């Protein structure tokens, strides 16, 4: 069944091939595994970009295909990051504490070790107690499960309440944004149990491993590439066939779909939840490469960027979302990272770190007005021309 699906969806195969070639290219050029042309920090940037592509295709499915403009998917991304971050931080602090106490004449009790870890982690927010949500932080399998389960449950409960009340369109977008804002504001508090605005840090270090950053970075890059490939196949499967037909029908006229006998709310809930879970996975791969996560990452603006990427890349086609996320996020770090030369107009100097957002906003407006299909729409011209070619 899987085979026939992949064979009938050639664009999926093309995408997987491109992704494999890209991964191979980066591996050959990276410091740890190859020529060393690509710096470790750039490998991390590329790995993070792959994670952003993963959440972008999730956004494309929920918005481009199902018509739900969610401004909350970066919250799920952040929750995934926090879930893995808790384990990374706990396990690493545990190693350090045990290492430093092992020189003592009297061996430390487990209570002493736990206190010492608590002080290390929560000292910045004036506490040394482990909050309840850290109960499973010692266990990698449980925190990995949380990466998927917590965003999934949140999306399920939130979606159930929202869809059941038939909240749609811009009102639903506002509701998802409110959820994101509430979560971010809660996490900013010191007693949220997740170190307030300090967030979780030191996530780039892998506990119990003495591999250098150059090796770790390429491994995370590989993991991100695999996750993106699997995510792409998963979503291509969801949007193909009858499911895709029903989802697109819901986007275009949900009342009519109800009269065909489909329980529209269940379908929306399915799409919302599955994309939230994938967003959680994307976040869990992103933040170990970023090294730090704090509540500002979850702020509504991040989810708006996500919508902008998908719109610029082209809604309603998965590779469009990938193109949009790659293009805009890399361009964004080039402009805001000082890569772009400032333009001196004589009377005024355009400093890109300030003006990039203006440029992005303008291009968003222009793309929406002039090229509603986004960059991905360019591929239509190619195929149309090819079809016309032999006849003309």
């Amino acid at each position, binding site marked *: *069944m899987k085979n026939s699906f992949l064979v009938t969806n050639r664009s999926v195969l093309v995408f997987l091939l491109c992704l494999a070639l890209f991964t191979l290219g980066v591996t050959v050029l990276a410091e740890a595994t190859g020529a060393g042309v690509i710096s470790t920090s750039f490998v991390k940037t590329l790995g993070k970009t792959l994670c952003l592509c993963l959440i972008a295709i999730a956004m494309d499915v929920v918005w481009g295909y199902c018509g739900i403009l969610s401004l909350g998917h970066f919250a799920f991304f952040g929750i995934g990051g926090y879930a893995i971050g808790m384990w990374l931080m706990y396990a690493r602090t545990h190693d350090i504490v045990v290492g430093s106490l092992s020189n003592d004449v009297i061996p430390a009790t487990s209570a002493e070790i736990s206190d010492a870890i608590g002080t290390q982690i929560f000292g910045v927010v004036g506490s040394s107690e482990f909050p309840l949500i850290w109960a499973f932080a010692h266990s990698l399998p449980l925190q990995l499960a949380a990466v998927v389960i917590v965003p999934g449950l949140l999306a399920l409960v939130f979606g159930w309440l929202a869809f059941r009340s038939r909240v749609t369109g811009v009102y639903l977008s506002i509701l998802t944004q409110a959820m994101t804002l509430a979560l971010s504001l809660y996490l900013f508090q010191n007693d949220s149990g997740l170190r307030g605005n300090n967030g979780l840090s030191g996530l780039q270090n892998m506990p119990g491993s003495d591999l250098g950053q150059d090796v770790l970075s390429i491994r995370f890059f590989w993991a991100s590439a695999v996750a993106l490939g699997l995510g792409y196949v998963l979503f291509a499967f*969801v949007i193909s*066939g*009858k*499911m895709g*037909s*029903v989802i*697109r*029908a819901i986007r*275009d*006229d949900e*009342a*009519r779909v*109800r*009269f*065909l*006998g*489909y*329980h*529209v709310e*269940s*379908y929306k809930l*399915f799409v919302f939840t599955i994309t939230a879970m994938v967003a959680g996975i994307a976040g869990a791969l992103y933040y170990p490469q970023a090294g730090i996560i704090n509540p500002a990452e979850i702020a509504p603006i991040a989810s708006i960027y996500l919508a902008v990427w998908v719109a610029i890349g082209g809604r309603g086609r998965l590779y469009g979302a990938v193109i949009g996320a790659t293009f805009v996020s890399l361009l964004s770090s080039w402009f805001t990272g000082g890569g772009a030369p400032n333009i001196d107009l004589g009377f005024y100097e355009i400093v890109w770190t300030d003006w990039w957002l203006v440029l992005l906003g303008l291009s968003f407006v222009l793309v929406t007005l002039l090229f509603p299909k986004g960059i991905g729409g360019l591929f239509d011209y190619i195929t149309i021309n090819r079809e016309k070619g032999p006849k003309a």
Partner: protein
Amino acid sequence: MSALLEVSGVSVTFDGFRAINNLSLSINEPELRAVIGPNGAGKTTFMDIITGKTKPDTGHVLWGEQSRNLLGMSESAIAREGIGRKFQKPTVFEAQTVRENLAMALKNKRGPFDVLFYRKSAEGATRIEELAAEVGLTEQLPRTAGELSHGQKQWLEIGMLLAQDPRLLLVDEPAAGMTPAEREHTTDLLVRAAKTRAVIVVEHDMEFVRRLNCKVTVLHEGSVLAEGSLDHVTANPQVIEVYLGR
């Protein structure tokens, strides 16, 4: 013949306006029924109530052999019970092909996971071909529904209704905007459909109703004014007054 649908004592008020007033009506299976009435008589609201779009203030809508109450059910559950509806304005999914439109309507399990793992079957494909032939859209199967003419969209929608294989078909002004030839084709389709199931046609056009040659219910101000053959109801002085002005 037993009653398939029994509407009794239904009333609904919108902001103080009584759209439906103590309406009672019953349909057998199979049966073809035309519902006529002037603008604002409550014809569309009547359909909205049966299909679950509008909840009435009082009354019952009982369905099938077990006389199940439809009023507490969602639109999609009512549709799965076997009630299909065709809207006045053709509403098909314009961004998808004729084939996809029909496939979506085809009677199958409707749960998200059933649909996710649904794979095309030979019977399904044959059924779609048959339906397309019945509504005269065989040539158009691979085309996008948005490219169809107005009449073709109407037929596609009728085809989608037949694909659902409903026990009761509600059809709102099917002949609107059709050429005489298209109307004739539509009449044939409805008469044929009514041989095996219940069909309720809401219509303005008396000529069209005459061609359906069936029992007629006249609605006025939200309740039944007269019922019987077309000749019978058009001879009714009250009906004449309502239609020809006061």
